[in-house]
């Protein structure tokens, strides 16, 4: 890093505000906090990927391959908990949101910088608690990341600790959302009205509202699980007047909107990238902005589709099915607007756009198979099968994951002031993309054939596609390694990228790369961007 340092502007936030670990651990600079999140998320993501690889390896053949059933159950639980609570939910908002929300609106920081740092500490504490279950006590929970009662109340494994970790992480997520909402309300640069905001800010705004209003419900639900495990009083026990299905309601009241916490920021990223690389203003700006809010709101109304076979009442099944179909509409609107923006543009297929188009394709598959889940008849068949596993990996990993990678490749030169190797990035994309499809597509077929999820062992007739899927996991991981190696090399030795390598329009490109501590050299004033140059 040192030899090339001269090529970058000297007054960047890496140099300013102190050096050394302590200066990072006590920073209130939103850019540094964003990077702190990025480094910690990268570590947890890798752990969860390894767990996923091990699970796939176990499933390559029926019967025991590399681990016992109990180990397998703990593995998929921990894989889920880490991926959901430590990677996908905080992923884009905490890394790119922290770094770019203030920059996109020409502000010098978020509204509550110290609170922002506290959120990161809560995140790390939560993560430490979650991972501590690996080492201490009776081992990590074996309930699945859904912690369904009554199993989660009965099992001897360390559910309380895992649940408490999720509680702490939820708190971190709430505070991040609170910070962004206030920032967006109060700190936009002079002249930037609500409908001048970059679309990423709209998606962050919608996401933050979900974080604020849905997360407390899971918090209290998880506390109830802890109380039930400690006191054993039958909070969800029907013989005492309780109801195990109520737990599922409470869990999904949060966890379904949480799906939109995961996907909306990725949609925002794609809405930033597509106009820049097709050299034209976003088609239907308002439609995209409003569809983000619509997704956030309708997202509160559809949780019941996780419970169509749970014994919920008939009318509830029907209502939730209709509402579920309605939530597809705003997503469809977004896709059409993205397409219309590409049409007649002047397209430059750089890695960020490539990842965005990959996002659209994978998200389409995820979203369209979601329609199969939303219909009552087909849901009955594929609920809790590998089809669902395929579906949500397409949405969560294909959608949010690829959105994350798109954001990483798009904003990387602004964050580090350097550029990664474009050719290698393209190559890594294709390996990742192909591996992804080989890994997850077979799950749809397995599910339709009747292979339930969370199965340690399976009937021999399922083996063919399981092998294909496992091979896919190796290709996918190869692609991921290629991508990260390229990114890390870029950060250390890449060529200086200049302030605006993509010729972007939004305010973050007006400042130097990496930005100075105070973000802008002089207080910026918002001007309507001129897109078509």
């Amino acid at each position: 890093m040192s030899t090339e340092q001269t090529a970058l502007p000297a007054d960047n936030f890496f140099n300013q505000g102190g050096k050394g670990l302590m200066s990072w651990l006590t920073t209130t600079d939103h850019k540094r906090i964003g990077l702190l999140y990025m480094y910690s998320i990268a570590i947890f993501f890798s752990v969860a990927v390894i767990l996923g690889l091990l699970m796939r390896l176990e499933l390559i053949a029926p019967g025991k391959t590399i681990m016992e059933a109990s180990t397998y159950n703990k593995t998929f639980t921990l894989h889920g908990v880490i991926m959901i609570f430590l990677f996908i939910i905080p992923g884009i908002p905490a890394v790119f949101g922290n770094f770019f929300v203030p920059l996109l609106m020409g502000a010098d920081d978020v509204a509550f910088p110290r609170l922002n740092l506290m959120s990161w500490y809560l995140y790390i504490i939560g993560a430490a608690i979650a991972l501590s279950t690996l080492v201490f006590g009776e081992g990590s929970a074996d309930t699945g990341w859904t912690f369904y009662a009554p199993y989660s109340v009965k099992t001897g494994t360390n559910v309380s600790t895992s649940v408490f970790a999720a509680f702490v992480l939820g708190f971190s997520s709430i505070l991040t959302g609170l910070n962004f909402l206030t920032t967006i309300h109060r700190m936009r640069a002079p002249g930037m009205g609500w409908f001048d905001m970059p679309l990423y800010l709209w998606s962050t705004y919608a996401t933050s509202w979900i974080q604020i209003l849905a997360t407390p419900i899971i918090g209290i639900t998880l506390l109830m699980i802890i109380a039930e495990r400690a006191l054993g009083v039958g909070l969800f026990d029907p013989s005492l007047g309780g109801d195990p299905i109520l737990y599922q309601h409470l869990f999904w009241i949060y966890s379904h909107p949480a799906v939109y916490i995961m996907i909306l920021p990725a949609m925002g990223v794609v809405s930033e990238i597509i106009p820049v690389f097709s050299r034209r203003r976003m088609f239907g700006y308002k439609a995209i902005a409003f569809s983000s809010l619509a997704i956030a709101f309708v997202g509160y109304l559809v949780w019941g589709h996780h419970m169509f076979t749970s014994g919920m009442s008939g009318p509830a099944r029907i209502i939730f099915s209709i509402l579920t179909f309605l939530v597809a509409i705003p997503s469809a609107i977004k896709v059409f607007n993205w397409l219309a923006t590409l049409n007649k543009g002047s397209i430059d297929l750089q890695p960020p756009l490539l990842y965005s188009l990959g996002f659209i394709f994978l998200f389409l598959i995820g979203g369209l198979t979601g329609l199969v889940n939303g219909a009552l008849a087909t849901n009955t068949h594929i609920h809790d099968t590998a089809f669902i596993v395929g579906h949500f990996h397409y949405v969560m990993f294909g959608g949010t994951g690829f959105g994350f990678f798109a954001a990483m490749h798009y904003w990387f030169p602004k964050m580090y002031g350097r550029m990664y190797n474009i050719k290698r990035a393209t190559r890594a994309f294709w390996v990742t993309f192909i591996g992804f499809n080989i890994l997850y597509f077979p799950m749809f077929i397995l599910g339709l054939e009747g292979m339930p999820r969370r199965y340690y062992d399976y009937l021999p007739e399922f083996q063919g596609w399981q092998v294909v899927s496992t091979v896919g996991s190796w290709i996918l991981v190869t692609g991921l390694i290629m991508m990260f190696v390229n990114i890390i090399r870029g950060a250390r030795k890449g060529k200086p990228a200049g302030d605006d390598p993509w010729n972007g329009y939004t305010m973050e490109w007006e400042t130097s790369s990496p930005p100075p501590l105070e973000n802008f050299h002089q207080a910026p004033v918002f001007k309507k961007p001129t897109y078509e140059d």
Partner: protein
Amino acid sequence: MNETITSHAVHRDDEASKIGMWLFLFTELLLFGGLFLVYTIYRHLNSAAFANAAGELSVLFGTINTIVLITSSLTIALSISAIKNNNAKRAKIMLWLTLIFALIFMINKYFEWSAKIHHGLFPGMEHFMSLPPGEGLFFLLYFFMTGLHAFHIIAGSIFIAVVIAQLNKSKITQDDYVLQENAGLYWHLVDVIWIYLFPLFYLIH
């Protein structure tokens, strides 16, 4: 909570602090909201048992505590209007009164809880376990919700104590009292939650 209203930036934005506080209150509301949802469903499933169990609670205790909390809401509102009129002394007196009311509330609560625990109604105790289905849930929710509420009373009291300290240091003034306002918002929220807890647990039988 203290964190939500501090900002390292040079510029001060009281409106931002207030919005931040309100957003925090929303999460608090929904935290209780989840419990209210559980209460509503379980009351629906066990209406007779809930009505029976509610008879065990003392309306008198509940009413006294309601009055105490409403009055404490008044005193903290008056303290804010005092600081607006640059009367720091009166503001402090009103805050102290609020703290005293909080203390009365907690003492009252202590006696109420110990009476229930004395009767073995605390979750896990022998008498509790032998209650008919539904009644146990009522007491469980009663302890859970009023306990969580009491926890918020303590948190709010600490918040108010911080405000008093800041007033003593003249860090809160006629021009800069958003911290005190936020303490007020928090305290009123605690009151609003109690306004719902009171009828749900003490009055409907």
